């Protein structure tokens, strides 16, 4: 067992975890933050993307023990005072989701893109979302949603 201290969505937390606990496991099972989804569980699908120290990573392929002292933002940490983040608003407005399973990862990944690139082209958005897989939408509206968010942010 290991004791880890993290800041998750602005709140400091400390938990006892097994050495092999992944970040996605800690978030979902110990902290009840089930917005971070587990799809493939082998870092291909991107449903588990969160931000660690400001960068997007796949939380299913990071050990919680190795992130002691880090700052984590999950999909639950994007809205402020009950108001959706512009990226969440844009996904809603542009119908960037159908079943919604991949959406938390898509949104977290897209937010990271706009941090580095204010007005990405369609191709840049598609390249950036390489590691996020959606089985419903065919990606078209997801790209439209990211463009919409870029125009608002």
């Amino acid at each position, binding site marked *: 067992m290991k004791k880890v201290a993290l800041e998750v969505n602005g709140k400091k937390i400390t938990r006892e975890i097994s050495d*092999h606990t992944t970040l996605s496991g800690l978030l979902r099972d110990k902290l009840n933050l089930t917005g971070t989804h587990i799809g493939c569980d082998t870092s291909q699908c991107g449903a588990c993307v969160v931000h660690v120290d400001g960068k997007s990573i796949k939380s299913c392929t990071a*050990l919680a023990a*190795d992130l002691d002292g880090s700052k984590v933002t999950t999909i639950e940490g994007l809205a402020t005072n009950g108001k959706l983040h512009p990226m969440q608003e844009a996904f809603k407005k542009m119908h960037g989701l159908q079943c919604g399973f991949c959406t938390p990862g898509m949104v977290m990944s897209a937010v990271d893109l706009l941090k580095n690139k204010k007005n990405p082209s369609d191709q840049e958005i598609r390249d950036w979302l390489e*590691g*996020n897989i959606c089985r419903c939408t065919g990606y078209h509206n997801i790209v439209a949603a990211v463009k919409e968010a870029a125009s608002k942010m």
Partner: protein
Amino acid sequence: MKTFNYHSAKDVKEASKLASSNSAFLAGGMTTIPSMKLGLASYKDIIDIKRIKKLSGIKVSGKTVTIGATTKHSEVASSKDVKKAIPSLAALAEGIGDPQVRNRGTIGGSIANNDPAADYPSACIALNATIHTNNRSIDAEKFFRGMFETCLKSTEVIESIEFSIPQKSSYQKLPNPASRYAIVGVYVAQHKTGINVGVTGAKSCVYNDKDLAGALTKNFSSSVIDSVKISSSGMNSDIHASSDYRANMVKAFAKKAVDAC
């Protein structure tokens, strides 16, 4: 995933001391963690080397670029120094996996794993790399032994990889559309001392294609590649590409690389 004892080493000496035949060093974990989840690997001890500061960073001298073992792909891809000294190396890093993999995966992890379809091994071959460990310095040609096999000992830690800056170079690959691993990847580099053609994805281990290098030494143009015979014997054959197809792609991507030099 079977449980293990997680250790975070404070320096290379401690990491090496903790290592055994039943342990693995953990850098980005982009292969190690999924392999453990899938039951392809299990270890008693996982030794995290990410917090060892001296293992990360990029240094450019007059003739070489030295990259610390735990330097992430995203750091190599965005490094102004690498882009200036060896642009093809920064471009290679930018083409690995996806952004989240590049934010975690490391160069040392990539070459220690020696996946037959990984990108970085071809750079090590093409750019006459020297792999510096805590015990010795190893030429890339001797480092990569076979499929997922290197000459590293279980307690040996890669500290940095030193690449020679070529006169011109280019890496071109046919990526698997799902994983972005190379179905075939060809790294052509022209140095004052000679030409290397590092090929990944085609066989069970990265190699320097001497026939292509020899032809390019006589005439550095993509048209000369048409006359080189590439045998499909010993090439990988799987659901993504047959060995004959791969042999053809080695030619096609060698030509692309020469044209892009």
